[in-house]
């Protein structure tokens, strides 16, 4: 699909994201100005505070944004997931340039001018309002301008905590290797940053005493201001209308997912099934890193899909074991006692490492298991992703367990291994077992007959209090037990990643076909 065609199809959604983005940046910068400028003024009056406060603001800015979001999620009032958390983080990032420039601007006022002001009999407040602030305004606006451009960038990361904005396109584009999505998100963000820079540049020139075209510029700045207020107004009006109708429902369920297609699909399936039973659903999909777990434990989410192996090793920190039953039981027990979270029955498929060969080879040599293939590997080249080469349950233990000796091992990007295998560049790869292209490229998954790979059964994690509050949850999760086969999941994944279809539609069709 050409980028132009993509834009024609998606322009209204893209505009919505742009609007979300602008609103986030605008509110964050507004709050940062309201906090930062008075703080800066205070620092010019109290020299001893200057070092510590600027130091703290400085440290704030060096914290990686995803980490900052992670810290904020478990906190009461300011934490959680969604726009509020994103705003707190954005404000913290925006403070430094605003405070620093306020201090620099005011201290940079010509000493003779300040002295004259005091000697004229101005009070400290009059000196500040009539002399220092007007003369420092250019420098302060420069600070606001820098903060705004940074905020436009950081806001793209806010999508990871479910705050929306253009980051949604960028994250999705990265995951699905979809350049149109990436380009739409990144280009729009870049254009927004340029536009903000340009408009604030005009405002800045307002306060310089070089240009005489001030009246004309004032009109431009005013127009920009009006535009901004309009956008904010519209969105506030919209969100207040939306929020009003949503909070009315007692049985509202927040469904989360991790930031990859399969997780989002599993969440969408539950969401639609709940909606079909009259439960209103808040979707918090595509959350980055460890955020879904944090959000579930803190109560911001009611439920999200997880894999038993991930819960077992990454969250509960147990050493990997290979018995699926044992892993499931341990996870269920630990989650109940530690987090008051219930683990649903497995939904029917695993997303583990799948060792793949070409279907033609498998048929020719009659290969069923990895052990069957082991004797051939001295003639074979292997292609593995970086992740598989480095992780604990990856290549070193794998080759040892089966006694594999490859002619050559190539480390490459995971997404490229599929095409490398089907085009005879390599002969064996380690893929995700639910990858859609396994079917479409006629690849064959060898059975892990020595049970080397830990089990990664898909389950739903759901808060116990949510189960008690919304009876429909229990019914839906019971229906989903063993309902999704590996084949189903591959096909669903391929519809999204391969055919670039809308997840909501795909899920709707699938639910109808399965009569769920």
């Amino acid at each position, binding site marked *: 699909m050409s980028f132009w065609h993509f834009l024609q199809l998606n322009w209204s959604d893209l505009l919505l994201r742009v609007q979300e983005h602008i609103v986030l940046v605008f509110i964050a910068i507004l709050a940062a100005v309201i906090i930062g400028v008075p703080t800066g003024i205070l620092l010019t009056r109290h020299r001893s505070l200057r070092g510590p406060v600027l130091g703290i603001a400085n440290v704030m800015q060096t914290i990686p944004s995803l980490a900052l979001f992670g810290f904020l999620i478990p906190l009461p009032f300011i934490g959680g997931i969604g726009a509020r958390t994103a705003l707190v983080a954005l404000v913290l990032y925006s403070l430094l340039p605003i405070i620093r420039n306020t201090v620099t601007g005011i201290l940079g006022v010509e000493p003779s*001018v300040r002295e004259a002001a005091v000697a004229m009999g101005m009070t400290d407040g*009059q000196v500040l309002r009539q002399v220092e602030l007007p003369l420092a305004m250019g420098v302060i606006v420069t600070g606001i301008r820098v903060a705004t451009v940074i905020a436009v960038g950081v806001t793209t990361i806010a999508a990871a905590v479910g705050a929306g904005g253009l980051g949604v396109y960028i994250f999705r584009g990265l995951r699905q290797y979809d350049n149109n999505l990436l380009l739409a998100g990144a280009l729009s963000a870049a254009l927004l940053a340029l536009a903000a820079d340009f408009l604030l540049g005009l405002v800045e020139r307002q306060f310089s005493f070089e240009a005489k075209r001030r009246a004309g510029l004032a009109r431009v700045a005013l127009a920009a201001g009006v535009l901004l207020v309009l956008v904010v107004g519209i969105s506030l009006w919209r969100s207040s209308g939306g929020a009003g109708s949503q909070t009315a429902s007692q049985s509202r369920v927040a469904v989360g997912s991790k930031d990859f297609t399969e997780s989002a699909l599993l969440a969408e399936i539950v969401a639609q099934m709940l909606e079909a039973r009259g439960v209103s659903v808040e979707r918090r999909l595509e959350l980055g890193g460890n955020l879904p777990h944090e959000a579930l434990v803190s109560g911001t989410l009611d439920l999200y899909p997880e894999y038993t192996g991930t819960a077992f090793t990454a969250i509960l920190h147990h050493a990997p074991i290979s018995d699926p039953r044992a892993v499931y039981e341990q996870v269920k027990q630990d989650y109940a006692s530690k987090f008051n979270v219930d683990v649903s029955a497995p939904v029917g498929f695993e997303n583990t490492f799948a060792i793949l060969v070409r279907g033609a080879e498998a048929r020719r040599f009659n290969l069923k298991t990895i052990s069957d293939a082991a004797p051939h590997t001295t003639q074979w080249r292997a292609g593995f992703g970086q992740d598989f080469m480095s992780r604990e349950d990856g290549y070193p233990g794998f080759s040892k367990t089966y006694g594999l000796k490859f002619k050559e091992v190539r480390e490459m990007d995971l997404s490229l291994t599929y095409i490398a295998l089907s085009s005879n560049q390599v002969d064996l790869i380690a893929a995700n077992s639910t990858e859609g292209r396994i079917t479409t490229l006629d690849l064959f998954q060898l059975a892990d007959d020595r049970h080397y790979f830990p089990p990664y059964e898909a389950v739903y994690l759901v808060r116990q209090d949510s189960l008690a509050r919304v009876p429909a949850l229990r019914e839906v999760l019971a229906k989903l037990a063993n309902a999704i086969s590996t084949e189903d999941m591959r096909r669903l994944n391929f519809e999204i990643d391969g055919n670039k279809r809308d997840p909501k539609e795909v899920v709707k069709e699938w639910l109808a076909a399965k009569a769920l």
Partner: protein
Amino acid sequence: MPQESTNDPLVQFHNVTFSLPTAANIISDLNLTVEKGETLVLLGESGCGKTTTLKLVNRLLTPSSGEVRVEDRATTAWDPIALRRRIGYVIQEGGLFPHFTIARNVGLVPVLSGWDAARTSERVRELLSLVGLDPERFAERYPRELSGGQRQRVGVARALAADPPLLLLDEPFGALDPLTRASLQREFADLTSRLGKTAILVTHDVREALILARRIGLMHKGRLVLLETPERFLASDNPQAHAYIETLNLSDGGAR
């Protein structure tokens, strides 16, 4: 030292010492009386304490010991804002606010004192005319659009705006070219005598001191070493005064 006049004192320094914790005394044991209507010029080289002396009058600084009295009240007993509004202050280049028009600069103290717009505007026009600037041409301009001499005139007009009894001037003509300086000095001498203003002016230019002063106070290393009329200053055998008079002779010799 015989006193020439028995007029009322406007400003008095009583045993004033000013020091900062980090340095030696900037002003030591200063006793000085400024009488109503006179122009007193404080003369001395950079760092001798003459600017500090000026700032002690309008309480930009307060004495470490001793007291400064203005209108027979210690500056520390004055409300600093009220004190400063009764004292005009002119510094080099005028210290004008670059973001205010000339009219707003001049009208600053009247506005701060709560005058209404019509009265302020009338006063601004009057003052601009007084310092030789056409109100029609200059009122709506900004300081950067004026020459150094014009800015200095505005600075004087601003200091006079609320009709204060006392003017403090810190090297007001220092940054000007010789011709402009000479004409402004003449106009200033004319203006103060016409308006009957008391002025304390700080300079390191002995010619300026001789032209403008009723009395010259010579300062050296934080002390007042001589306080005399210009005529007696020229005849003085004080070594510091003598050094200044010699520079005068040298440059006079060069000019002839």
